[in-house]
């Protein structure tokens, strides 16, 4: 009876009911929040840009602290990535921040291979996560997620357009990571030039099909601010850790003979916008996008390479388990076949060696027989000789005895002769 009731209910549409009083499941988001706060957050930033363009200074300015770093030289042989992890805390929120720096980017004379180390690094982080996910005994909640959540691409403020290296690198990265392009050292571009420069950059990115990160506009709480910020991309930023007294306040700024560029002044540069967007509003969305879009794309490509498919030839949905089982069976049968082959080979080899050994045995036997025969021959000959020798000896002895007896009787005769 109960079974049919259940059937009836499940075939109806879902109904929305109104509550008679306060139940209390509106605290669910809070529970989620407190759980994630106790867990701690982690965020990974990749900074791509030429040597000396201000990556480290901007990181210091963004997080209002000094991350230790040495100045890189221009004479590196190639590009290599330098990840550094820091633990930050603000009120009661822990952040495990990893900053990955590209050392030597843009310095070589031949920059055709410059993008490769970066792409390899991003793929390696995805691969590590995938391995962890596919493990039988896995601990995802404990896993230190090193996947890059955001790539800040630093554009040199030439005032004309993107450099060729920028275009090539961004095209290779746009399907793997969220890219936010920023114009570095923006205090060298005047306002009118900046406007033209931004338009030129965005049009070049669009015409070349480069997908940069768009701030999400589906959540009403932040859609307005996000859509207005989308229009300000790429952000023109100035970084500074030095403080200058302006009026009666001390602010972070750069002091020039002709004026003071204040980092947090919205009319001077877009630093505040970048901080808002990157940290205060969209950090969680960036993590989500990395996991839901870029990581899933990587995973799909990787698994397809390995031969997994979502649908079998009849277009029935496969589950991963079934595919996995099928693969396993295949693999095992392969294994068995190989075992059989090896065993056959082994048996054949054994037979061969056996026959060889038999051959050799026979040969040895023949030789033995031959030797024996020879030996016997020799023996016989030797026996004959011995007998001959014995006969001779006997004959000699007899003659000797005969001679002796003769000589015994002889001296008597001689003596007699002498006496006479």
């Amino acid at each position, binding site marked *: 009876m109960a079974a049919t009731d259940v059937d009836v209910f499940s075939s109806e549409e879902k109904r929305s009911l109104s509550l008679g009083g306060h139940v209390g499941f509106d605290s669910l988001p809070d529970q989620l929040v407190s759980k994630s706060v106790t867990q701690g957050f982690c965020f990974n930033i990749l900074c791509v840009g*030429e*040597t*000396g*363009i*201000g990556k480290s200074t901007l990181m210091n300015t963004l997080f209002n602290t000094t991350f230790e770093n040495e*100045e*890189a*030289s*221009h*004479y590196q042989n190639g590009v290599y990535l330098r990840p550094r992890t820091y633990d930050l805390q603000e009120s009661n929120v822990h952040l495990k921040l990893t900053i990955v720096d590209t050392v030597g980017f843009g*310095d*070589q*004379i*031949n*920059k*055709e291979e410059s993008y490769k180390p970066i792409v390899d690094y991003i793929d390696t982080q995805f691969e590590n996560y995938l391995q962890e996910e596919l493990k039988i005994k896995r601990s995802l909640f404990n896993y230190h997620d090193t996947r890059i959540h955001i790539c800040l691409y630093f554009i*040199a*403020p*030439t*005032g*004309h*357009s*993107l*450099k*060729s*290296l*920028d*275009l*090539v690198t961004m095209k290779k990265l746009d399907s793997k990571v969220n890219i936010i392009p920023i114009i*570095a*050292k923006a*205090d*060298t571009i*005047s*306002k009118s030039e900046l406007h033209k420069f931004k338009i030129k950059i965005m049009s*070049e990115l669009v*015409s*070349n099909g480069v997908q940069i990160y768009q701030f999400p506009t589906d959540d009403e709480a932040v859609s307005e601010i996000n859509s207005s910020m989308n229009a300000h991309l790429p952000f023109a930023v100035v970084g500074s850790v030095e403080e200058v007294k302006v009026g009666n306040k001390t602010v972070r700024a*750069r*002091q*020039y*003979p*002709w*004026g*003071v*560029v*204040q980092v947090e*002044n919205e*009319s*001077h540069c877009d630093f505040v916008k970048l901080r808002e967007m990157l940290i205060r509003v969209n950090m969680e969305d960036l993590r989500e996008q990395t996991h839901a879009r870029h990581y899933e794309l990587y995973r799909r490509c990787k698994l397809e390479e390995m031969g997994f498919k979502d649908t079998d030839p009849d277009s029935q949905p496969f589950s991963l388990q079934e595919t996995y089982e099928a693969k396993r069976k295949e693999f095992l049968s392969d294994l068995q076949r190989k075992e059989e082959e090896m065993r056959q080979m082994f048996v054949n080899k054994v037979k061969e060696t056996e026959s060889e050994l038999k051959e050799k045995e026979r040969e040895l036997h023949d030789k033995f027989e031959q030797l024996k025969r020879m030996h016997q021959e020799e023996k016989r000959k030797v026996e004959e000789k011995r007998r001959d020798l014995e006969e001779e000896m006997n004959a000699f002895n007899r003659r000797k005895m005969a001679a002796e007896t003769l000589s015994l009787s002889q001296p008597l005769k001689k003596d007699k002769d002498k006496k006479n």
Partner: protein
Amino acid sequence: MDAIMLQEKLVERLLCARGRTTRQKDKQYVGFATLPNQVHRKSVKKGFDFTLMVAGESGLGKSTLVNSLFLTDLYKDRKLLNAEERINQTVEITKHTVDIEEKGVKLKLTIVDTPGFGDAVNNNECWKPITDYIDQQFEQYFRDESGLNRKNILDNRVHCCLYFIPPFGHGLRPVDVEFMKALHEKVNIIPLVAKADCLTPNEIKKLKDRVRDEIERFGIKVYQFPECDSDEDEEFKQMDKELKECTPFAVIGSNTVVEARGQRVRGRLYPWGIVEVENQSHCDFVKLRNMLIRSHMHDLKDVTCDVHYENYRAHCIQEMTSKLAQDNRIDSPIPILPLPTPDAETERLIKMKDEELKRMQEMLEKMQQQMHEKDTC
């Protein structure tokens, strides 16, 4: 007080000297003190020419600086390439020639631009078109100079090359070093730090020291200002010293005129202030302009003619004579004094002596080896 005013004083003195001679004709006065004056007159009549090359990555403000230097708009309808087009761009050489005149002095100015330098993804040997161009100009002058009709020789040799170093890095980059090393023996290189309005005074000083160190370390021979004569006055010497310590010049250029401190000046307008191009405390533009145009222009030409061109010429002639001796051809495109050819007898003697020398050298080596072996034994 600067070089401009000193030079103006000198000119005045010369012009006045003329008046004096006519009045004091009866005095014991030969009058060749007017020679400088005559030179001045003739040169004004003949006019001057100057070829300037600008090199550096695109977007460093080369065109803007040239416009600011010569107060004209040379690059009116320029077409800038997109990033996509620049991926495989090759370096081109473009020339703009203008005739400008100031106080009766005519200057034929040629600006040689190098669009595409350092812009491609693979910049191997991107300086080759530039060195080829410079060599071509030398070769052409060499031919003209050795020709029969030398009345109207066009001097297209590059007198000076302004190399723009980006201020965004920590010093010279490999492409900068390679470029300067390829060109330092062909042309006068003056390195500049471009777009200096992105560096605070401390940073400028650090970068200049860095660049000077690296130039020395890599053995790059940039253009050196000539030493002052000992009879120049102290002010001039002091100025010269300051000039030398200021290299490489940190420059800013501007195409626009802004209003600052009640005056209309060339500058860049920012929300936080106005950068004046001709303000000495803002950048070294004035120093560069004075050095390049007002005091050292002729010296740059002289160094090009006397040093770089002569090097090229000697090198060329040596190659040609060695080739001629090998090929045994008598005719050559350029009249060269034939080397004194020794007659057969002396040649034979020379050959014999050479062989003897070689033999003795070999023996010496063998003995040395033996001694060495004995020592090691």
